[in-house]
């Protein structure tokens, strides 16, 4: 897509936080799947059905390897997106393991995907939801962590804020959660494509992400859960593929990740996800992290030098524990208008609340204009961004 011309200008895609651009091998993996081996999975005996099952289960294996899941395929559940993963977590694990009064601890910088399912569960069974506050330095304020975790059964926090770029200390949080007898979930939607993820090393119990934010296709997400936890979670959606038996008087669910995958799964999407995982693994996630770190440092520096106080970066100014998500607030120019002017330059940035309204309220903002990098981003993208920003400021100044 980056070779596309828009109004005579090349496209400058700076919206990877919202969704990433799949490289050719990912798109081709899906086309090839449909052209050569499309069949429904699991129940087939014939060749292409065997192949499609191998594609689907192979993706499970690839994902398990990518996040270094201790028990591999037994721990990887395919959902439709990270949002469904959190709904599955709240409504299967949560509904089965939480009692009225139990606390779930989130943070003020969570995406709605990691907030609303918990409110829904609260409205159903009466749990308590607590939020780790965010400091003026755009980082989690962990001063009251021990109190917040007192009586908590789960701590669920994002690995990286999709608004601030803040990278949270997941390892430390997981340790704290476990010290209080709580489990730990990480929203890896913004982490998975930007730095190495090792669930064992992080010490987390659950991890959720979407393929479309990691160079993969829409329509597929992942919930990873430790095998012993997953094994005891009740089913979520009901239907074909998740049952051992169905009678006129009831049903018996099956075991393993299949229990949570009712209906025909996203098979072509799994082929695309596999290709994305292989693409990222070839780049090397440590390289990707370093590359984006350098891009971010360059962009933050030049934003500051060019606009001084006129353009405020809503997020940490240092690049330590910070990813390539840069939210901008421009004095006197609304985020929507910035994005509109930037669009004339072929620059794609996203205005709005980025599905993080509690965080926006915390900083008294209704919207920011967010530019975000991916492995395919270039310093030239920042050049165009700065030029377009200057024009926007002039227009409204």
């Amino acid at each position, binding site marked *: 897509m980056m070779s596309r011309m828009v109004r005579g200008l090349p496209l400058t895609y700076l919206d990877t936080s919202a969704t990433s651009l799949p490289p050719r091998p990912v798109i081709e993996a899906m086309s090839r799947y449909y052209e050569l081996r499309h069949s429904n999975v699991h129940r087939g005996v014939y060749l292409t059905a065997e192949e499609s099952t191998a594609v689907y289960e192979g993706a499970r294996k690839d994902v398990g390897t990518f996040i270094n899941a201790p028990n591999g395929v037994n721990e990887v559940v395919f959902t439709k997106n990270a949002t469904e993963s959190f709904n599955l977590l709240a409504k299967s694990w949560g509904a089965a393991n939480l009692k009225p009064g139990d606390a779930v601890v989130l943070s003020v910088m969570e995406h709605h995907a990691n907030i609303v399912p918990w409110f829904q569960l609260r409205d159903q069974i009466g749990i308590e939801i607590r939020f780790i506050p965010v400091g003026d330095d755009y980082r989690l304020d962990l001063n009251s962590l021990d109190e917040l975790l007192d009586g908590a059964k789960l701590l669920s926090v994002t690995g990286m804020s999709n608004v601030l770029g803040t990278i949270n200390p997941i390892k430390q949080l997981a340790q704290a959660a476990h010290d209080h007898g709580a489990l730990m979930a990480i929203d890896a939607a913004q982490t998975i494509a930007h730095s190495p993820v090792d669930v064992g090393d992080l010490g987390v119990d659950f991890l959720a992400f979407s393929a479309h934010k990691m160079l993969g296709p829409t329509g597929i997400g992942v919930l990873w859960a430790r095998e012993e936890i997953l094994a005891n979670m009740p089913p979520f959606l009901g239907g074909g593929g998740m049952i051992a038996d169905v009678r006129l008087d009831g049903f018996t669910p099956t075991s393993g990740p299949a229990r949570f995958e009712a209906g025909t799964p996203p098979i072509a999407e799994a082929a695309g996800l596999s290709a994305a995982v292989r693409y990222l693994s070839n780049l090397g996630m440590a390289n990707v992290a370093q590359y984006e770190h350098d891009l971010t440092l360059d962009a933050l520096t030049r934003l500051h030098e060019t606009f001084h106080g006129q353009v405020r970066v809503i997020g940490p100014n240092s690049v330590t524990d910070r990813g390539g998500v840069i939210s901008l607030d421009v004095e*006197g*120019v*609304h*985020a*929507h*208008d910035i994005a*509109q*002017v930037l669009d*004339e330059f072929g620059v794609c940035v996203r*205005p*709005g*609340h980025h599905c993080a*309204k509690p965080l*926006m309220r915390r900083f008294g903002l*209704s*919207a920011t204009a967010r530019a975000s990098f991916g492995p395919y981003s270039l310093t030239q993208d920042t050049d165009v961004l700065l030029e377009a920003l200057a*024009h926007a400021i002039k*227009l*409204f100044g």
Partner: protein
Amino acid sequence: MSNLDDLYREIILDHYRSPRNRGELPSPPAIRSEGFNPLCGDELVICVEVQDGVLTNIKISGQGCSISQASSSLMSTVVKGKTLEQIDETINTFKQLMTVHESTLQHGDEPAKIDLRALGELAALQGVVNFPVRIKCATLAWNTLRQALDEA
């Protein structure tokens, strides 16, 4: 950047920089109505006073982009002092203006004839129809006003 000039006409930028009828009114007696654009975070509060079928006062507060702010500011100047029937007509005309794009695009229909003179300064918002995602910004104030008047 001629596209942009069409969207951001001087009169729009002026209303954005200096919005008219800003503020709130004590409610009651004023009717208070809130409008959200969940997609972009625009929030609007409209307070109106209606006496004997006439909108006697209007105040607007909230946050939004230049289009939603200018639209609400322009609207406030146009509807103040008008009868509810007149306002109803203006709302309809304005919303028609804002749907032209869609119907022309999707059905190849002839755009409905709209009396731009009846809209006065509001006609400055005409350029918005070429930016479909911004139409919701322009219509937010109008939907919120209608909501308020429905309670009147």
